Protein backbone atom coordinates (compact mmCIF):
# COMPACT_ATOMS: atom_id res chain seq x y z
CA UNK A 1 0.00 0.00 0.00
CA UNK A 2 3.00 2.25 0.23
CA UNK A 3 4.47 4.37 -2.51
CA UNK A 4 8.15 4.82 -3.29
CA UNK A 5 9.45 8.34 -3.08
CA UNK A 6 12.96 9.52 -3.79
CA UNK A 7 14.43 12.51 -2.00
CA UNK A 8 17.49 14.44 -3.06
CA UNK A 9 19.75 16.68 -1.02
CA UNK A 10 20.46 19.99 -2.73
CA UNK A 11 22.50 22.95 -1.67
CA UNK A 12 20.96 26.33 -2.22
CA UNK A 13 22.94 27.02 -5.36
CA UNK A 14 21.55 28.17 -8.64
CA UNK A 15 21.02 25.54 -11.28
CA UNK A 16 20.79 22.46 -9.06
CA UNK A 17 17.09 21.92 -9.62
CA UNK A 18 17.55 22.41 -13.36
CA UNK A 19 20.39 19.87 -13.29
CA UNK A 20 18.25 17.25 -11.55
CA UNK A 21 15.30 17.66 -13.87
CA UNK A 22 17.61 17.55 -16.89
CA UNK A 23 19.15 14.25 -15.71
CA UNK A 24 15.70 12.74 -15.16
CA UNK A 25 14.50 14.04 -18.52
CA UNK A 26 17.50 12.53 -20.30
CA UNK A 27 16.74 9.20 -18.61
CA UNK A 28 13.14 9.37 -19.82
CA UNK A 29 11.80 9.48 -16.28
CA UNK A 30 8.46 11.13 -15.70
CA UNK A 31 7.77 13.09 -12.55
CA UNK A 32 4.34 12.37 -11.05
CA UNK A 33 4.50 14.68 -8.03
CA UNK A 34 7.07 16.78 -6.26
CA UNK A 35 7.68 18.93 -3.25
CA UNK A 36 10.65 21.06 -2.30
CA UNK A 37 11.40 21.76 1.34
CA UNK A 38 14.01 24.39 1.91
CA UNK A 39 16.06 26.02 4.64
CA UNK A 40 18.53 28.87 4.25
CA UNK A 41 21.39 26.48 3.48
CA UNK A 42 19.93 23.48 1.77
CA UNK A 43 16.80 21.94 0.39
CA UNK A 44 15.25 18.50 0.09
CA UNK A 45 13.55 17.68 -3.16
CA UNK A 46 11.01 14.87 -2.89
CA UNK A 47 9.75 13.19 -6.00
CA UNK A 48 7.31 10.52 -7.02
CA UNK A 49 8.41 9.23 -10.41
CA UNK A 50 7.41 6.43 -12.73
CA UNK A 51 10.65 4.52 -12.01
CA UNK A 52 12.18 5.31 -8.62
CA UNK A 53 15.00 2.77 -8.91
CA UNK A 54 16.27 4.09 -12.23
CA UNK A 55 15.88 7.71 -11.13
CA UNK A 56 17.88 7.06 -7.97
CA UNK A 57 20.66 5.32 -9.88
CA UNK A 58 20.89 8.08 -12.49
CA UNK A 59 21.10 10.83 -9.87
CA UNK A 60 23.56 8.91 -7.70
CA UNK A 61 25.81 8.42 -10.66
CA UNK A 62 25.96 12.20 -11.10
CA UNK A 63 27.05 12.62 -7.49
CA UNK A 64 23.77 13.49 -5.83
CA UNK A 65 22.81 12.17 -2.42
CA UNK A 66 19.56 10.29 -2.92
CA UNK A 67 17.33 8.34 -0.57
CA UNK A 68 14.37 6.12 -1.27
CA UNK A 69 11.58 6.28 1.31
CA UNK A 70 8.06 4.93 1.50
CA UNK A 71 5.17 7.33 1.67
CA UNK A 72 1.38 6.94 1.63
CA UNK A 73 -0.81 8.32 -1.14
CA UNK A 74 -4.47 8.97 -0.39
CA UNK A 75 -7.18 9.98 -2.81
CA UNK A 76 -9.71 12.59 -1.69
CA UNK A 77 -12.57 14.31 -3.49
CA UNK A 78 -11.38 17.63 -4.90
CA UNK A 79 -13.93 19.69 -2.98
CA UNK A 80 -14.05 21.94 0.11
CA UNK A 81 -13.38 19.97 3.29
CA UNK A 82 -11.72 17.06 1.49
CA UNK A 83 -8.32 17.39 3.13
CA UNK A 84 -9.80 18.41 6.46
CA UNK A 85 -11.71 15.15 6.78
CA UNK A 86 -8.52 13.10 6.37
CA UNK A 87 -6.56 15.15 8.87
CA UNK A 88 -9.32 14.91 11.44
CA UNK A 89 -9.40 11.16 11.09
CA UNK A 90 -5.62 10.98 11.59
CA UNK A 91 -5.76 13.36 14.51
CA UNK A 92 -8.42 11.29 16.23
CA UNK A 93 -5.97 8.37 16.23
CA UNK A 94 -3.09 10.64 17.24
CA UNK A 95 -1.15 9.89 14.10
CA UNK A 96 1.51 12.47 13.40
CA UNK A 97 2.21 13.79 9.90
CA UNK A 98 5.93 14.35 9.26
CA UNK A 99 5.24 16.19 6.03
CA UNK A 100 2.77 16.14 3.17
CA UNK A 101 2.13 17.52 -0.27
CA UNK A 102 -0.70 17.28 -2.75
CA UNK A 103 -1.51 17.26 -6.41
CA UNK A 104 -4.71 17.16 -8.38
CA UNK A 105 -5.34 14.23 -10.68
CA UNK A 106 -5.33 15.14 -14.33
CA UNK A 107 -8.61 13.43 -15.01
CA UNK A 108 -11.16 12.06 -12.62
CA UNK A 109 -11.33 15.21 -10.54
CA UNK A 110 -9.81 13.82 -7.36
CA UNK A 111 -6.84 15.16 -5.42
CA UNK A 112 -3.99 12.97 -4.22
CA UNK A 113 -2.25 13.72 -0.95
CA UNK A 114 1.19 12.27 -0.29
CA UNK A 115 1.90 11.71 3.41
CA UNK A 116 5.00 10.81 5.32
CA UNK A 117 4.03 9.23 8.66
CA UNK A 118 6.02 7.98 11.57
CA UNK A 119 3.65 5.04 11.84
CA UNK A 120 2.75 4.33 8.24
CA UNK A 121 1.00 1.00 8.83
CA UNK A 122 -1.24 2.33 11.54
CA UNK A 123 -2.09 5.32 9.35
CA UNK A 124 -3.00 3.10 6.41
CA UNK A 125 -5.33 0.89 8.43
CA UNK A 126 -6.99 3.91 10.04
CA UNK A 127 -7.56 5.58 6.68
CA UNK A 128 -8.94 2.41 5.12
CA UNK A 129 -11.24 1.80 8.08
CA UNK A 130 -12.64 5.25 7.44
CA UNK A 131 -13.21 4.53 3.76
CA UNK A 132 -10.43 6.65 2.35
CA UNK A 133 -8.88 5.33 -0.84
CA UNK A 134 -5.21 4.56 -0.21
CA UNK A 135 -3.55 4.30 -3.62
CA UNK A 136 -1.31 1.50 -4.83
CA UNK A 137 2.10 2.57 -6.05
CA UNK A 138 1.54 1.18 -9.55
CA UNK A 139 -1.55 3.27 -9.96
CA UNK A 140 0.30 6.45 -9.05
CA UNK A 141 3.40 5.76 -11.14
CA UNK A 142 1.27 5.28 -14.25
CA UNK A 143 -1.17 8.13 -13.70
Amino acid at each position, binding site marked *: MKVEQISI*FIENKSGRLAEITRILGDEGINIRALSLADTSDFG*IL*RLIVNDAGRAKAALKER*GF*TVNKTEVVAVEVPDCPGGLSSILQTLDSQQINVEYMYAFVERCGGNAVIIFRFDEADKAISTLQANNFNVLQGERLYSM
Partner: protein
Amino acid sequence: MYFNEEFETLPRQALEAIQLKRLRAVLERVYNNVPFYRNSFDMAGFRPADLKGLDDLQRLPFTTKQDMRDSYPYGLFAAPMDEIVRIHASSGTTGKPTVVGYTGSDVNMWAELMARSFVSAGAHKGDIVHNAYGYGLFTGGLGAHYGAERLGASVIPMSGGNTKKQIMIMQDFGSTVLTCTPSYSLFMAEAAREEGIDFRDLKLRVGIFGAEPWSEAMRAEIEAKLNLSAVDIYGLSEIMGPGVAIECCEAKCGLHIWEDHFIPEIIDPVSGRRLAEGERGELVITTITKQGIPLIRYRTRDITSITYEPCICGRTHARITRMSGRSDDMLIIRGVNIFPSQIESVLVGIEGVEPHYLLIVERTDNLDTLEIQVEVDEQLFSDEIKVLQKLSKRIEKEIKDILGVTCSAKLVEPKTIQRSEGKAKRVIDNRKS
Protein backbone atom coordinates in the same frame (compact mmCIF):
# COMPACT_ATOMS: atom_id res chain seq x y z
CA MET B 1 66.12 -6.64 12.48
CA TYR B 2 68.36 -3.69 11.74
CA PHE B 3 70.27 -2.46 8.73
CA ASN B 4 72.93 -0.72 10.81
CA GLU B 5 72.62 -2.21 14.27
CA GLU B 6 75.45 -0.23 15.82
CA PHE B 7 74.02 3.16 14.98
CA GLU B 8 70.32 2.29 15.26
CA THR B 9 70.72 1.05 18.82
CA LEU B 10 73.28 3.53 20.16
CA PRO B 11 72.78 4.28 23.85
CA ARG B 12 71.35 7.75 24.35
CA GLN B 13 74.55 9.20 25.75
CA ALA B 14 76.66 8.01 22.83
CA LEU B 15 74.04 9.24 20.38
CA GLU B 16 74.11 12.69 21.91
CA ALA B 17 77.89 12.77 21.88
CA ILE B 18 77.82 12.06 18.14
CA GLN B 19 75.14 14.70 17.64
CA LEU B 20 77.19 17.34 19.42
CA LYS B 21 80.33 16.55 17.45
CA ARG B 22 78.45 16.61 14.14
CA LEU B 23 76.49 19.73 15.06
CA ARG B 24 79.71 21.60 15.78
CA ALA B 25 81.09 20.60 12.37
CA VAL B 26 77.96 21.62 10.47
CA LEU B 27 77.76 25.00 12.22
CA GLU B 28 81.36 25.68 11.19
CA ARG B 29 80.53 24.61 7.68
CA VAL B 30 77.51 26.86 7.18
CA TYR B 31 79.16 29.79 8.99
CA ASN B 32 82.10 29.61 6.63
CA ASN B 33 80.27 28.80 3.39
CA VAL B 34 76.77 30.29 3.49
CA PRO B 35 76.44 34.10 3.79
CA PHE B 36 72.84 33.71 4.97
CA TYR B 37 73.96 31.72 8.03
CA ARG B 38 77.01 33.90 8.71
CA ASN B 39 74.65 36.92 8.86
CA SER B 40 71.98 35.26 10.94
CA PHE B 41 74.51 33.82 13.43
CA ASP B 42 76.25 37.19 13.70
CA MET B 43 72.92 38.90 14.32
CA ALA B 44 72.19 36.39 17.08
CA GLY B 45 75.66 37.06 18.53
CA PHE B 46 76.67 33.43 18.07
CA ARG B 47 79.94 31.92 16.89
CA PRO B 48 80.14 28.16 16.14
CA ALA B 49 82.88 27.96 18.79
CA ASP B 50 80.27 29.11 21.36
CA LEU B 51 78.52 25.77 21.11
CA LYS B 52 79.11 23.96 24.39
CA GLY B 53 76.21 21.53 24.49
CA LEU B 54 73.17 20.46 22.48
CA ASP B 55 71.00 22.90 24.41
CA ASP B 56 72.90 25.81 22.85
CA LEU B 57 71.10 24.98 19.62
CA GLN B 58 68.18 26.97 20.99
CA ARG B 59 70.23 30.15 20.73
CA LEU B 60 70.21 29.91 16.94
CA PRO B 61 67.53 31.42 14.71
CA PHE B 62 65.16 29.26 12.66
CA THR B 63 65.44 28.66 8.94
CA THR B 64 62.12 28.92 7.10
CA LYS B 65 60.75 27.96 3.72
CA GLN B 66 60.74 31.66 2.93
CA ASP B 67 64.49 31.81 3.57
CA MET B 68 64.89 29.03 1.01
CA ARG B 69 62.76 30.92 -1.49
CA ASP B 70 64.71 34.11 -0.92
CA SER B 71 67.88 32.15 -1.67
CA TYR B 72 66.43 30.57 -4.83
CA PRO B 73 67.91 28.60 -6.42
CA TYR B 74 71.40 27.97 -4.97
CA GLY B 75 71.85 30.59 -2.24
CA LEU B 76 71.84 28.17 0.70
CA PHE B 77 74.19 25.62 -0.87
CA ALA B 78 77.21 24.99 1.33
CA ALA B 79 79.20 23.07 -1.30
CA PRO B 80 80.53 24.28 -4.66
CA MET B 81 78.45 23.21 -7.67
CA ASP B 82 81.12 20.80 -8.88
CA GLU B 83 80.51 18.72 -5.75
CA ILE B 84 76.72 18.70 -6.22
CA VAL B 85 75.75 15.46 -7.96
CA ARG B 86 71.96 15.71 -7.74
CA ILE B 87 69.35 18.44 -7.59
CA HIS B 88 65.78 17.97 -6.38
CA ALA B 89 63.03 20.47 -5.66
CA SER B 90 59.77 20.55 -3.78
CA SER B 91 56.60 20.92 -5.80
CA GLY B 92 56.32 24.66 -5.33
CA THR B 93 52.55 24.66 -5.17
CA THR B 94 52.61 27.85 -3.15
CA GLY B 95 55.34 29.70 -5.05
CA LYS B 96 58.82 29.05 -6.43
CA PRO B 97 60.02 25.53 -5.74
CA THR B 98 62.54 25.05 -2.96
CA VAL B 99 65.73 23.71 -4.47
CA VAL B 100 68.06 21.27 -2.75
CA GLY B 101 71.43 19.92 -3.83
CA TYR B 102 73.13 16.69 -2.79
CA THR B 103 76.81 15.91 -2.79
CA GLY B 104 78.00 12.36 -3.34
CA SER B 105 78.16 11.82 0.41
CA ASP B 106 74.62 13.20 0.83
CA VAL B 107 73.23 10.72 -1.70
CA ASN B 108 75.15 8.01 0.10
CA MET B 109 73.78 9.01 3.49
CA TRP B 110 70.23 9.17 2.09
CA ALA B 111 70.55 5.66 0.65
CA GLU B 112 71.77 4.38 4.02
CA LEU B 113 68.87 5.98 5.89
CA MET B 114 66.34 4.68 3.36
CA ALA B 115 67.86 1.20 3.63
CA ARG B 116 67.47 1.43 7.42
CA SER B 117 63.88 2.52 6.83
CA PHE B 118 63.16 -0.46 4.58
CA VAL B 119 64.44 -2.86 7.22
CA SER B 120 62.48 -1.03 9.91
CA ALA B 121 59.35 -1.60 7.82
CA GLY B 122 60.10 -5.33 7.67
CA ALA B 123 61.79 -5.56 4.26
CA HIS B 124 65.09 -7.42 3.66
CA LYS B 125 67.66 -8.32 1.04
CA GLY B 126 66.00 -10.42 -1.62
CA ASP B 127 62.73 -8.55 -1.51
CA ILE B 128 61.23 -7.31 -4.77
CA VAL B 129 60.42 -3.65 -4.26
CA HIS B 130 57.68 -2.19 -6.42
CA ASN B 131 58.43 1.52 -6.25
CA ALA B 132 55.43 3.56 -7.36
CA TYR B 133 56.60 6.88 -5.94
CA GLY B 134 57.11 9.44 -8.69
CA TYR B 135 60.59 9.73 -10.19
CA GLY B 136 61.81 13.21 -11.06
CA LEU B 137 62.33 16.44 -9.18
CA PHE B 138 60.15 14.98 -6.41
CA THR B 139 62.39 13.10 -3.98
CA GLY B 140 60.10 10.10 -3.39
CA GLY B 141 60.98 7.87 -6.32
CA LEU B 142 64.77 8.15 -6.35
CA GLY B 143 64.96 8.21 -2.55
CA ALA B 144 63.19 4.88 -2.24
CA HIS B 145 65.07 3.52 -5.25
CA TYR B 146 68.57 4.11 -3.91
CA GLY B 147 67.56 2.86 -0.48
CA ALA B 148 66.18 -0.39 -1.85
CA GLU B 149 69.33 -0.94 -3.91
CA ARG B 150 71.50 -0.27 -0.86
CA LEU B 151 69.49 -2.85 1.03
CA GLY B 152 70.20 -5.36 -1.70
CA ALA B 153 66.60 -5.70 -2.79
CA SER B 154 65.47 -5.87 -6.42
CA VAL B 155 63.89 -2.58 -7.38
CA ILE B 156 61.16 -2.19 -9.96
CA PRO B 157 61.31 1.53 -10.83
CA MET B 158 57.65 1.96 -11.76
CA SER B 159 57.06 5.60 -10.81
CA GLY B 160 53.42 6.69 -10.49
CA GLY B 161 50.48 6.31 -12.87
CA ASN B 162 49.58 3.68 -15.50
CA THR B 163 47.68 1.70 -12.91
CA LYS B 164 46.78 -1.31 -15.08
CA LYS B 165 50.43 -1.90 -15.88
CA GLN B 166 51.36 -1.48 -12.22
CA ILE B 167 48.96 -4.26 -11.30
CA MET B 168 50.15 -6.56 -14.08
CA ILE B 169 53.80 -6.07 -13.09
CA MET B 170 53.09 -6.68 -9.42
CA GLN B 171 51.30 -9.91 -10.33
CA ASP B 172 53.84 -11.17 -12.85
CA PHE B 173 57.04 -10.05 -11.11
CA GLY B 174 55.91 -11.20 -7.67
CA SER B 175 56.52 -7.88 -5.91
CA THR B 176 56.84 -8.30 -2.15
CA VAL B 177 57.22 -4.67 -1.05
CA LEU B 178 55.11 -1.75 -2.24
CA THR B 179 56.15 1.88 -1.91
CA CYS B 180 53.71 4.63 -2.86
CA THR B 181 51.28 7.09 -1.32
CA PRO B 182 48.66 5.43 0.91
CA SER B 183 45.78 6.69 -1.21
CA TYR B 184 47.35 5.29 -4.38
CA SER B 185 47.66 1.86 -2.78
CA LEU B 186 43.91 1.78 -2.19
CA PHE B 187 43.26 3.14 -5.65
CA MET B 188 45.29 0.30 -7.16
CA ALA B 189 43.51 -2.32 -5.05
CA GLU B 190 40.17 -0.94 -6.20
CA ALA B 191 41.24 -0.86 -9.86
CA ALA B 192 42.51 -4.44 -9.56
CA ARG B 193 39.23 -5.62 -8.11
CA GLU B 194 37.42 -4.25 -11.15
CA GLU B 195 39.71 -6.41 -13.29
CA GLY B 196 38.83 -9.41 -11.17
CA ILE B 197 42.19 -9.42 -9.35
CA ASP B 198 42.26 -9.61 -5.56
CA PHE B 199 45.27 -7.82 -4.11
CA ARG B 200 45.25 -10.31 -1.27
CA ASP B 201 46.36 -12.97 -3.76
CA LEU B 202 49.53 -11.05 -4.64
CA LYS B 203 52.84 -11.68 -2.87
CA LEU B 204 52.97 -8.24 -1.23
CA ARG B 205 54.09 -8.46 2.38
CA VAL B 206 55.21 -4.94 3.30
CA GLY B 207 53.88 -1.52 2.34
CA ILE B 208 55.78 1.73 2.95
CA PHE B 209 53.43 4.65 2.57
CA GLY B 210 54.00 8.36 2.93
CA ALA B 211 54.05 11.78 1.25
CA GLU B 212 50.54 12.55 2.48
CA PRO B 213 48.75 12.40 5.83
CA TRP B 214 46.82 9.24 6.63
CA SER B 215 45.07 7.77 9.63
CA GLU B 216 45.00 4.57 11.69
CA ALA B 217 41.63 3.78 10.09
CA MET B 218 43.22 4.01 6.67
CA ARG B 219 46.05 1.71 7.77
CA ALA B 220 43.49 -0.90 8.84
CA GLU B 221 41.74 -0.61 5.48
CA ILE B 222 45.00 -0.91 3.50
CA GLU B 223 46.23 -3.86 5.54
CA ALA B 224 42.93 -5.68 5.05
CA LYS B 225 42.55 -4.95 1.34
CA LEU B 226 46.19 -5.53 0.36
CA ASN B 227 47.06 -8.19 2.92
CA LEU B 228 50.34 -6.61 3.94
CA SER B 229 51.91 -4.82 6.88
CA ALA B 230 51.71 -1.05 6.31
CA VAL B 231 54.01 1.53 7.89
CA ASP B 232 54.17 5.30 7.71
CA ILE B 233 57.28 7.01 6.39
CA TYR B 234 58.13 10.69 6.74
CA GLY B 235 60.44 13.01 4.93
CA LEU B 236 60.70 16.31 3.14
CA SER B 237 62.94 17.39 0.34
CA GLU B 238 64.37 20.34 2.29
CA ILE B 239 65.79 17.95 4.87
CA MET B 240 66.56 14.99 2.60
CA GLY B 241 63.51 13.30 1.09
CA PRO B 242 61.72 10.17 2.29
CA GLY B 243 63.36 8.30 5.14
CA VAL B 244 63.89 11.11 7.64
CA ALA B 245 61.70 9.05 9.98
CA ILE B 246 59.80 5.77 9.74
CA GLU B 247 57.71 3.47 11.88
CA CYS B 248 59.08 0.10 12.87
CA CYS B 249 57.00 -2.92 11.96
CA GLU B 250 57.29 -4.22 15.53
CA ALA B 251 55.52 -1.32 17.27
CA LYS B 252 53.90 0.80 14.54
CA CYS B 253 53.69 3.46 17.17
CA GLY B 254 55.47 6.65 16.20
CA LEU B 255 58.16 7.17 13.58
CA HIS B 256 61.82 6.75 14.58
CA ILE B 257 63.72 9.81 13.43
CA TRP B 258 67.35 9.01 12.53
CA GLU B 259 68.94 11.09 15.22
CA ASP B 260 72.54 10.45 14.26
CA HIS B 261 71.80 12.63 11.21
CA PHE B 262 69.00 14.93 12.33
CA ILE B 263 68.31 16.76 15.58
CA PRO B 264 64.57 17.16 16.10
CA GLU B 265 62.90 19.79 18.27
CA ILE B 266 59.21 20.54 18.86
CA ILE B 267 58.31 24.21 19.19
CA ASP B 268 55.22 26.29 19.82
CA PRO B 269 54.52 27.59 16.29
CA VAL B 270 53.49 30.99 17.61
CA SER B 271 56.09 31.79 20.26
CA GLY B 272 58.91 29.66 18.84
CA ARG B 273 59.55 28.32 22.34
CA ARG B 274 60.76 24.73 22.60
CA LEU B 275 58.14 22.34 23.97
CA ALA B 276 58.62 19.38 26.28
CA GLU B 277 58.49 15.70 25.36
CA GLY B 278 54.92 14.68 24.52
CA GLU B 279 53.68 18.20 23.83
CA ARG B 280 52.27 18.83 20.39
CA GLY B 281 53.78 21.50 18.19
CA GLU B 282 55.81 22.17 15.07
CA LEU B 283 58.68 19.89 14.16
CA VAL B 284 62.02 21.67 13.69
CA ILE B 285 64.96 19.74 12.25
CA THR B 286 68.68 20.48 12.15
CA THR B 287 70.64 18.38 9.69
CA ILE B 288 74.02 17.48 11.11
CA THR B 289 75.65 15.44 8.35
CA LYS B 290 74.46 17.03 5.13
CA GLN B 291 77.09 18.68 2.95
CA GLY B 292 75.19 20.14 -0.02
CA ILE B 293 72.57 22.12 1.81
CA PRO B 294 72.69 21.73 5.57
CA LEU B 295 69.79 23.42 7.34
CA ILE B 296 69.88 24.75 10.89
CA ARG B 297 66.63 24.62 12.87
CA TYR B 298 64.45 24.25 9.76
CA ARG B 299 60.78 24.83 10.50
CA THR B 300 58.99 21.93 8.79
CA ARG B 301 55.49 23.33 9.47
CA ASP B 302 54.44 19.78 10.34
CA ILE B 303 52.63 19.32 13.64
CA THR B 304 53.65 16.36 15.78
CA SER B 305 55.05 15.48 19.19
CA ILE B 306 58.14 13.56 20.21
CA THR B 307 58.91 10.79 22.66
CA TYR B 308 62.24 9.40 23.86
CA GLU B 309 60.62 6.35 25.50
CA PRO B 310 62.37 3.08 24.63
CA CYS B 311 60.70 1.17 21.80
CA ILE B 312 60.11 -2.57 21.70
CA CYS B 313 62.05 -2.80 18.44
CA GLY B 314 65.29 -1.90 20.25
CA ARG B 315 66.03 1.25 18.26
CA THR B 316 67.09 4.07 20.54
CA HIS B 317 66.16 6.89 18.20
CA ALA B 318 63.31 9.17 19.31
CA ARG B 319 59.87 8.75 17.82
CA ILE B 320 57.59 11.41 16.42
CA THR B 321 53.84 10.82 16.23
CA ARG B 322 51.98 10.81 12.93
CA MET B 323 51.74 14.28 11.47
CA SER B 324 48.45 15.78 12.54
CA GLY B 325 48.49 18.91 10.43
CA ARG B 326 50.53 21.86 9.32
CA SER B 327 51.32 24.86 11.47
CA ASP B 328 50.50 27.15 8.55
CA ASP B 329 46.97 25.76 8.91
CA MET B 330 46.65 26.83 12.52
CA LEU B 331 43.72 29.14 13.03
CA ILE B 332 43.25 31.62 15.81
CA ILE B 333 39.53 32.13 16.20
CA ARG B 334 38.53 34.62 18.86
CA GLY B 335 41.79 33.91 20.62
CA VAL B 336 41.47 30.12 20.52
CA ASN B 337 44.20 28.19 18.67
CA ILE B 338 42.74 25.47 16.50
CA PHE B 339 44.23 23.02 14.05
CA PRO B 340 41.96 21.70 11.30
CA SER B 341 42.97 18.21 12.41
CA GLN B 342 41.28 18.83 15.77
CA ILE B 343 38.04 19.65 14.00
CA GLU B 344 38.52 16.59 11.84
CA SER B 345 38.78 14.33 14.86
CA VAL B 346 35.56 15.78 16.30
CA LEU B 347 33.76 15.21 12.99
CA VAL B 348 35.04 11.66 12.63
CA GLY B 349 33.68 10.98 16.12
CA ILE B 350 30.15 11.76 14.96
CA GLU B 351 28.71 8.63 13.47
CA GLY B 352 28.28 8.74 9.72
CA VAL B 353 30.13 11.99 9.22
CA GLU B 354 32.84 11.66 6.57
CA PRO B 355 36.09 13.48 7.20
CA HIS B 356 35.59 15.68 4.16
CA TYR B 357 35.22 19.18 5.47
CA LEU B 358 36.10 22.76 4.72
CA LEU B 359 36.58 25.53 7.24
CA ILE B 360 35.63 29.06 6.25
CA VAL B 361 36.70 31.88 8.53
CA GLU B 362 35.34 35.40 8.19
CA ARG B 363 35.40 38.53 10.28
CA THR B 364 32.08 40.28 10.71
CA ASP B 365 31.82 43.37 12.92
CA ASN B 366 35.29 42.63 14.32
CA LEU B 367 34.19 39.16 15.37
CA ASP B 368 35.61 35.98 13.89
CA THR B 369 33.12 33.48 12.53
CA LEU B 370 33.83 29.88 11.68
CA GLU B 371 31.73 27.88 9.26
CA ILE B 372 32.31 24.16 8.89
CA GLN B 373 31.11 22.65 5.65
CA VAL B 374 30.36 18.96 5.92
CA GLU B 375 29.35 16.70 3.07
CA VAL B 376 26.04 14.90 3.35
CA ASP B 377 26.26 11.38 2.06
CA GLU B 378 23.55 8.77 1.84
CA GLN B 379 24.17 7.55 5.35
CA LEU B 380 23.53 10.99 6.85
CA PHE B 381 20.80 12.12 4.54
CA SER B 382 17.18 12.09 5.57
CA ASP B 383 14.10 13.23 3.71
CA GLU B 384 13.11 15.13 6.83
CA ILE B 385 14.45 18.64 7.40
CA LYS B 386 14.48 18.31 11.17
CA VAL B 387 16.83 15.33 11.08
CA LEU B 388 19.38 17.26 9.04
CA GLN B 389 19.03 20.32 11.24
CA LYS B 390 19.60 18.15 14.28
CA LEU B 391 22.80 16.89 12.70
CA SER B 392 24.20 20.37 12.10
CA LYS B 393 23.26 21.40 15.64
CA ARG B 394 25.05 18.36 16.99
CA ILE B 395 28.22 19.22 15.06
CA GLU B 396 28.07 22.80 16.36
CA LYS B 397 27.59 21.60 19.92
CA GLU B 398 30.41 19.06 19.86
CA ILE B 399 32.87 21.56 18.38
CA LYS B 400 31.87 24.02 21.08
CA ASP B 401 32.10 21.44 23.87
CA ILE B 402 35.39 19.93 22.80
CA LEU B 403 37.27 22.84 21.22
CA GLY B 404 35.57 25.77 22.93
CA VAL B 405 34.78 27.64 19.75
CA THR B 406 31.44 28.65 18.32
CA CYS B 407 30.83 27.63 14.73
CA SER B 408 28.04 27.11 12.27
CA ALA B 409 27.83 23.79 10.50
CA LYS B 410 26.72 23.87 6.90
CA LEU B 411 25.69 20.72 5.09
CA VAL B 412 26.84 20.53 1.49
CA GLU B 413 26.44 18.10 -1.38
CA PRO B 414 28.86 15.18 -1.61
CA LYS B 415 32.09 15.48 -3.59
CA THR B 416 31.91 19.27 -3.49
CA ILE B 417 34.86 19.48 -1.12
CA GLN B 418 38.30 18.82 -2.55
CA ARG B 419 39.64 15.36 -1.77
CA SER B 420 42.80 14.88 0.25
CA GLU B 421 45.77 14.17 -1.98
CA GLY B 422 48.31 15.33 0.53
CA LYS B 423 47.63 18.98 -0.04
CA ALA B 424 43.87 19.27 0.28
CA LYS B 425 42.71 22.77 1.05
CA ARG B 426 40.91 22.57 4.38
CA VAL B 427 40.76 26.22 5.30
CA ILE B 428 39.60 29.38 3.59
CA ASP B 429 40.47 32.36 5.73
CA ASN B 430 38.75 35.49 4.46
CA ARG B 431 39.88 37.69 7.33
CA LYS B 432 41.92 40.66 6.26
CA SER B 433 43.52 42.11 9.30
